[in-house]
C-alpha cells in the first residue's frame, strides 16, 4: 500500500506538471485550436487518467477522506472533470443527448424563429437545428454613454438642450411655442410618393443620423423639421428656430439590448426578457446570450443558444473546491490557533 501511495503521488505530480505544460502550449496556439486540442482523443485519455488518479487518491489516502477540506478539494475536482465531460461535444454524442449544444440564431426585429445554426468543424459550414419553441425579437437597440442632444436657439438668443429621444419637449417661449422630437433616424432618406416627400429610415448600409422635430407655435399649425447631425443647417427653414443635432461621432457603447419573447408551439408567450451582455434569457434548458448584431442598420440581433447538461455538476464542483481550499488553508489554521490560545490561557 505504501508503495502504491508513493506511485500515486508521483503520478499526481506528473499529471499536474503535464497539464501545466499543455496549457502553456494551448496559450500559444490561440483559443480555437486550443479548444480542439483539449477535446481531442489523446486529451480525453489524459482527463480520464486524471479523474481515475483523483479517485484512487481518495481511496488510498485516508487523510483525503478524513480531512474535510482535502476531501472537498479533491472531490470538487472530480466533479468538475465529470461535468466538463458531460457538457462536451463528445459527452453529448456518447450519452445520446441530441439537444442542441451550442449555436447561433439570427432574428430580425418583429420576427420569430426556432432555427439554430450549429457550427461544424473548422471550414465545414453549419448544420441547421430546430428548437421546440420560437424566440421572437421585438426590438434590438444600442445604448450609448454619451447621448446625442437636440439644441434649439430660442427667441431671446438662448440655447436650450434636450437628450435626443422621441417624446422630449422644449418650451420655446410665448412667441415661438413648443418643440417636440417625434422621430429619430440612424440613416435618414427621403422618398417621393404621389408627389409628396416622405422621410424614412433606410435599412441599407449608411449613416445619416437625423431627428424629426415638430414645432407648434402658440397660434397656428404644427410643422415638422428635420435636423441632421452630419449636415448642420441642411434644409433649414428660415421661419423656424435654429436647431442643431449634436452627437459625438465615435460614441462609447454602454449596452446592447434585445427585447425577446419565447413563444411555444401553441403560440403562447411563455417567457419574456430584455437581454443584455451578462444578462441572458433562460428557458427550457437553454440560455440565450447577446452575441452580435446587425452592424449596418441595427435591424437584427444574433443570439447564442447554449444548453449544457454538465453545468450543475461543474458548479457543484466549483463550490466544493472553493469551500475546500478556504476551509483547509485558512479556517482550519485559524481554529487551531484559537484553540491553542484558549488552552494556554486556561493554563
Amino acid at each position, binding site marked *: 500500500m505504501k508503495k502504491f501511495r508513493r506511485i500515486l503521488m508521483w503520478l499526481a505530480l506528473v499529471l499536474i506538471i503535464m497539464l501545466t505544460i499543455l496549457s502553456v502550449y494551448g496559450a*500559444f496556439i490561440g483559443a480555437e485550436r486550443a479548444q480542439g486540442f483539449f477535446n481531442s482523443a489523446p486529451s480525453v485519455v489524459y482527463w480520464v487518467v486524471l479523474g481515475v488518479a483523483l479517485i484512487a487518491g481518495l481511496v488510498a489516502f485516508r487523510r483525503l477522506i478524513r480531512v474535510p477540506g482535502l476531501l472537498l478539494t479533491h472531490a470538487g475536482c472530480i466533479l468538475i472533470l465529470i461535468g466538463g465531460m458531460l457538457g462536451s461535444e463528445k459527452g453529448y454524442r456518447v450519452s445520446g443527448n441530441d439537444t442542441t449544444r451550442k449555436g447561433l440564431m439570427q432574428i430580425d426585429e418583429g420576427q420569430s424563429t426556432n432555427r439554430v445554426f450549429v457550427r461544424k468543424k473548422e471550414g465545414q459550414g453549419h448544420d441547421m437545428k430546430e428548437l421546440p419553441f420560437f424566440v421572437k425579437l421585438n426590438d434590438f437597440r444600442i445604448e450609448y454613454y454619451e447621448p446625442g442632444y437636440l439644441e434649439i436657439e430660442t427667441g431671446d438668443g438662448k440655447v436650450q438642450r434636450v437628450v435626443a429621444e422621441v417624446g422630449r419637449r422644449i418650451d420655446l417661449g410665448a412667441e415661438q411655442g413648443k418643440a417636440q422630437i417625434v422621430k429619430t433616424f440612424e440613416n435618414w432618406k427621403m422618398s417621393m410618393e404621389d408627389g409628396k416627400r416622405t422621410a424614412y429610415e433606410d435599412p441599407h448600409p449608411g449613416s445619416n443620423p437625423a431627428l424629426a422635430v415638430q414645432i407648434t407655435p402658440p397660434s397656428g399649425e404644427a410643422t415638422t423639421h428635420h435636423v441632421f447631425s452630419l449636415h448642420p443647417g441642411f434644409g433649414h427653414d428660415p421661419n423656424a428656430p435654429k436647431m442643431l443635432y449634436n452627437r459625438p461621432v465615435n460614441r462609447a457603447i454602454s449596452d446592447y439590448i434585445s427585447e425577446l419573447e419565447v413563444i411555444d408551439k401553441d403560440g403562447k408567450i411563455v417567457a419574456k426578457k430584455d437581454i443584455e451582455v451578462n444578462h441572458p434569457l433562460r428557458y427550457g434548458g437553454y440560455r440565450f446570450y447577446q452575441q452580435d448584431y446587425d452592424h449596418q442598420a441595427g435591424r437584427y440581433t444574433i443570439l447564442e443558444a447554449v444548453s449544457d447538461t454538465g453545468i450543475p455538476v461543474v458548479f457543484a464542483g466549483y463550490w466544493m473546491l472553493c469551500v475546500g481550499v478556504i476551509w483547509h488553508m485558512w479556517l482550519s489554521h485559524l481554529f487551531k490557533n484559537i484553540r491553542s490560545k484558549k488552552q494556554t490561557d486556561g493554563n
Partner: protein
Amino acid sequence: MEIKYTIQGLLVYTTMAAYLLAFVVSMLRKPKTGHALYLFGFAVAVVSYAYRWYDVRHVPLQNLFEVFLFLGMIYPVSLFCRRVLRVGGYVADMLIGVIVLFPAGFVFHAEPQYLPPALQSWLFTPHVAVYMLSYIVMAKAAVQAGCQLIGKTPKRGSDILPPEQGTYRMVLAGFPLLTLGLILGSYWGKLAWGDYWGWDPKELWSLVSWLVFLAYFHFRYMFGRKHPNMNSLLAILGMVAIIITLLWVNLSKLFPGLHSYA
C-alpha cells in the same frame, strides 16, 4: 515611457518616492522613520486610488493602469503578514510597492474609459480584486522563496518564520484567493458568453499559475523540507506565471501572428 503631468501622476510619483525613501531609510536601520514613510506612502496611494475612482466613476480595476494603482496599496497586506502570519519581507514590500507602481506611473496610459457592456457585471469587482490581492500575496511568497534560495535567515530571537516556511504560509494564504479568482472568472464567462471555459490564452495562463502552485503543494507534501530549493523554485515559477498572465495581452505582441485577448 510616459510621464504624467497630472494630479493623478503627481499622486503616483509621490507614493513611489515615499515607498522608495521608506525602503532606503529602513535599510539604514531606521525602522521607525521607515515605517512612518511607508504609512505616508500608503495614505497617498489610497488618495490616488480614490481620486481615480472619482474620475472614472466606476471601480477602477478596468485596465492595467488601474490594476497597478490598486496593487500599489500593498501596506495592509504587509502589516498583516508581519503581525499575524509572522512572515518577513516587510522592508522588501516597500520595494514591491515601487515596482508595481512603476508601470502605472511610466508605462500605461491613464485615459479614463467607459465600462464596455461585457464588464458591466457584479462579478467585475470581486473577480479582479480577489486576483490582485492573490498576486500581492504570491509576490511576497516569491520574495520569501528568493530569501530561502540565497540562504537568508531571520535574526535570532525574532518571531519571524524562516523563509522556507514563510513561503509555504504565504502560498497557503494566497492559493484560496487564486482559486476564487479563477472560479469567479469562469462563472462570469458562463454568464457573459455562455461558456465557463473558453481555452483562450489568458484563461490558460491563469490555469498555469494555479497549477504551478498546486504542484508546489503536492511536491512539498511528498518531500517536505527535504528539497527546500525545489520548493522555492516552484513558488518563484508560480509568480512568473502570474506575471505572464497579467501582462499576456501586452507580451503576446512580442510573438507576431498571435491573437491577443484581454
